[in-house]
């Protein structure tokens, strides 16, 4: 009688009694005829028994502390994200500072009104002129293309003799 194929993956189910009757009988017949599979089945059973009887135990845990920690984690998850963010001092302080700056700028803008080009030029002139003596003559200097060429400026009288004022 021809031997049935090696059961391989069915061996574990056979050892655990999980096979249907027809499959169980087929595997049993094969094991009776195949010493290799019979030896494998025997080894598998011993390994399973040894594993089951020697389960390593994890480090001990204080279950009260475990549940308390779990409660804190669960509470943190239930809190809406925006409330969680408020509990962080640094982003809260930065946001408050940014809001303050925006508020001040907004109020200043509302008080002074919208700036036109003229107002802006006047502001620029005031700020720059307070630091640069040359720009006291701003109305003259702005017409010079080569305002940095001081020799030309000094020798204007020589370049245009006879012109007054």
């Amino acid at each position, binding site marked *: 009688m021809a031997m049935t194929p090696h059961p*391989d*993956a*069915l*061996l*574990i*189910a056979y050892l*655990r009694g*999980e096979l249907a009757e027809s499959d169980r009988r087929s595997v049993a017949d094969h094991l009776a005829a195949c010493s*290799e599979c019979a*030896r*494998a089945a025997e*080894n*598998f059973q*011993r*390994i*399973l028994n*040894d*594993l*089951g009887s*020697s*389960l*390593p*135990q*994890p*480090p001990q*845990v204080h*279950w009260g502390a*475990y*549940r308390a*920690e*779990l409660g804190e*984690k*669960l509470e943190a*998850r239930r809190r809406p994200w925006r409330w969680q963010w408020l509990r962080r001092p640094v982003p809260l302080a930065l946001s408050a500072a940014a809001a303050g700056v925006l508020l001040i700028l907004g109020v200043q803008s509302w008080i002074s009104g919208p700036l036109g080009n003229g107002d802006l030029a006047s502001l620029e002139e005031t700020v720059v002129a307070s630091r640069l003596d040359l720009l006291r003559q701003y109305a003259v200097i702005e017409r010079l293309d080569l305002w940095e060429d001081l020799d030309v400026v000094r020798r204007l009288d020589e370049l245009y003799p006879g012109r007054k004022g």
Partner: protein
Amino acid sequence: MELSDESLCERVAGRDEAAFNLLVERYQQRAYRLAWSILRDAEEARDLSQEAFIRLYQAAGSFGGRARFSTWFYRILVNLCLDHRRKHRWWRRVVAPVHSEDEAEGSVVERLPAPAHDPLEELGRGRVMSRLWAAVDGLSHQQRAALLLQVQEGLPTAEIALVLKCSEATVRVHLHRALTALRKTLGGA
């Protein structure tokens, strides 16, 4: 009368805190032990088992009662642990090489002839157990999870398949390859 896990889970879906606390008390040890068996790290086992309870709380409404509560909860926990191991796989390969999950079908290892004598009788029992569990640590994620669910939690093949979200035939293959690898380790002294 003591409420079933499934009834408690239904109450958790209605935000019954007492029911949730009771489920935690019932499963905390099993969850932590199973997580530790897969991860072999107490801190990670603590974190991930707690995460599994949090997800249980958040998803209790989707339980449905189609499967046993333990199957559903183990699936959450095992998936968390396996995902965590996969994310850190590169580091674990540097520290301790593990078998590839991509073993070819019908590898040569599985058909090696059995040892002429039983190796289990020759080695001291303590050494054998140490080598055995070291070899379990070296199995692929799926093989290890399937073996632990069977040996440690006593789950039948059908339930292991539901936890691992695969077929029963696949679970049998995982277990067969796992035991073949362990047998080879013991016989290869």
